[in-house]
């Protein structure tokens, strides 16, 4: 047919032609609707699609809309027993990706009634359910979502949020400091608790189990909890500050997780931790448990790199961030910019804004495709962890701001003078940098000098600077924004 790839070819069919048995293109079934004006209550998605050779991008977009909502591969008459026009997702715009060949941004609107209230498992079963294995596409990536406030309001959100966490911990005005206990595997419970105690008494606010510390033969969970709490309590006594250790409750079953969380509560921990690999249902359950029991909830994003890192296929981390804030976690690892793990500065800024702010305007240079309103849902505290050290404090404060947990694992425990001096170096560096910023100094430019001056009165900081100097991990990012215009700094 001559008009197969033109506009006429994409038009929705009616009557006999639409409902006759057999296979017709998704676009013609009504999943392509260029004139559609999204409703305020619609869920909107932006997918990056890479169609198979010869597949029209509009048809590809329509196919994604179809497969992620009501469609199956052939016409079914039972559609006519439903309010199908309402339930069909509509691809309303397709744009070529600037600078990329055969990739398109497809914008799709979903009626809110397609999704169960307060259920990320249900939302994701539609949006990323079947469609990512779809043969007509070479690759597919969910870049961003606009969650309407109507739907946001059905979610639990962080058990406490940034403001309540700060009031609970009695810590204001500066990034919080943490560390992951190292080595991550192999320490006995008593030695493990020693690391916790030293890091906290030295000046850190929080210490953390690593994602893969659960209950192994070398250290069972109950023993770890008991020794960690001894360390936490001793550090509180020594400093007069609230201290915490994220006790990882990740385990094989919900029953095990509840048991561990209950015990963490009994022994007086202020915070527990889960891994992303436990799944969305388990995360939501733990969010509810945490609010009910006054427990801060830390999320380690274990596993996310398998689907967030490559630009053409998977789910962007900004979408994961959004889902996690909705399900409800108080902390989430979200990148460091300067550390050892993937992180383009503009992309990280987009993740941090998504987690912390109440209104985030569209900003393609930061990978944000839609305005997002959170309707006053409290923010989730981003956590920066992996290959960062005191010598980068000015950059960390500049890139990541104040509402962040900076986690210096190696940068504390690997300090030549010991763990407590390592912690002290980080604490002096962060307080000194915030002081300089508040005093109106150009702390980013003067950062190295500010640190040197602080180190004159703090030997552990001097040693930290001598040891790690200006070490940073400069590799090209894989996940960057694709925008036509040159981005201007905000």
């Amino acid at each position, binding site marked *: 047919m001559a008009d197969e790839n033109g506009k006429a070819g994409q038009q929705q069919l009616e009557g006999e032609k639409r409902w006759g048995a057999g296979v017709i293109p998704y676009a013609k079934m009504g999943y392509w609707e260029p004139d559609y004006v999204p409703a305020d209550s619609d869920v909107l998605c932006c997918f990056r699609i890479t169609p198979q050779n010869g597949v029209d991008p509009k048809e590809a977009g329509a196919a994604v809309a179809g497969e992620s909502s009501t469609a199956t591969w052939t016409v079914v008459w039972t559609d006519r027993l439903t309010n199908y026009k309402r339930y069909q997702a509509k691809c309303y715009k397709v744009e070529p990706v600037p600078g990329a060949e055969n990739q398109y941004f497809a914008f799709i609107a979903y009626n809110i009634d397609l999704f169960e209230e307060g259920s990320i498992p249900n939302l994701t079963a539609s949006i990323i359910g079947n469609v990512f294995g779809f043969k007509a596409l070479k690759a597919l990536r969910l870049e961003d979502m606009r969650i309407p406030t109507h739907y946001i309001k059905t979610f639990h959100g962080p058990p406490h949020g940034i403001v309540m966490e700060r009031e609970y911990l*009695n810590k204001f005005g500066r990034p919080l400091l943490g560390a992951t206990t190292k080595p991550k595997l192999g320490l006995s419970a008593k030695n493990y608790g020693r690391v916790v105690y030293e890091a906290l008494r030295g000046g850190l606010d929080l210490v953390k189990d690593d994602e893969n510390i659960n209950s192994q033969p070398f250290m069972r969970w109950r023993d770890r909890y008991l020794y960690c709490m001894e360390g936490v309590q001793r550090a509180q006594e020594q*400093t*007069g500050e609230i201290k915490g250790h994220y006790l990882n409750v990740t385990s094989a079953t919900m029953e095990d997780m509840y048991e561990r969380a209950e015990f963490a509560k009994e022994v007086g921990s202020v915070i527990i931790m889960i891994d992303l690999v436990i799944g969305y249902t388990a995360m939501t359950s733990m969010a509810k448990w945490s609010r009910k029991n006054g427990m801060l909830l830390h999320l380690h994003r274990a596993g996310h790199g398998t689907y967030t890192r490559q630009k053409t296929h998977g789910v962007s981390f900004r979408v994961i961030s959004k889902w996690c804030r909705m399900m409800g976690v108080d902390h989430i690892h979200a990148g460091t910019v300067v550390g050892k793990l993937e992180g383009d500065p503009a992309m990280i800024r987009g993740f941090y804004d998504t987690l912390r702010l109440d209104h985030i305007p569209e900003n393609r240079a930061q990978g944000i495709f839609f305005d997002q309103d959170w309707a*006053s849902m409290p923010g989730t505290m981003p956590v920066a962890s992996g290959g960062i050290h005191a010598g980068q404090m000015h950059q960390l404060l500049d890139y990541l701001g104040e509402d962040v947990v900076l986690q210096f694992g190696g940068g504390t425990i690997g300090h030549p003078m010991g763990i407590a001096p390592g912690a002290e170096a980080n604490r*002096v560096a962060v*307080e000194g940098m915030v002081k300089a910023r508040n005093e109106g100094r150009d702390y980013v430019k003067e950062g190295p000098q500010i640190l040197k001056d602080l180190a004159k009165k703090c030997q552990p900081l001097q040693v930290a600077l001598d040891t790690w100097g200006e070490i940073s991990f400069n590799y090209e990012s894989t996940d960057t924004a694709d925008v036509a215009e040159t981005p201007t700094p905000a």
Partner: protein
Amino acid sequence: MRVTQGTFSFLPDFTDDEIKLQLEYALQNKWALAVEFTDDPHPRNSYWDMWDLPMFDIGDASAAFMEVKKCREAYPNHYVKVTAYDPSPNRATTAFDLIVNRPAEEPGFQLERTEVHDRKMNYTVRSYAADKPHGERYQTNGK
């Protein structure tokens, strides 16, 4: 010991000029300053006594600093802190807090352990200062 609550407790105590710069920063951000004092620095003591009401209408760092000075003079052996309050929507909490006075001797805390069962321990942190009644704490020089 040194109680390390507050935004800047790991730095040497601020000079008056350094304190004023922080007050200035708060006022630039339209945060309200307030002065509080206590003789019980327990980490869970959320309610230090207020030195008058928060200074919602004082936009001048020198004027705010006068209140800091007055409080310090009235309670030279107490902990005194100045807090900046951020009233913005979805925030409405402390923006930073700065300890501006400490007792000459900080007696610190005791960790009380109660062994319960199955190797479990119940912990309580107690301020040594709270052994004495209000008004009699930190009075080492007969003041």
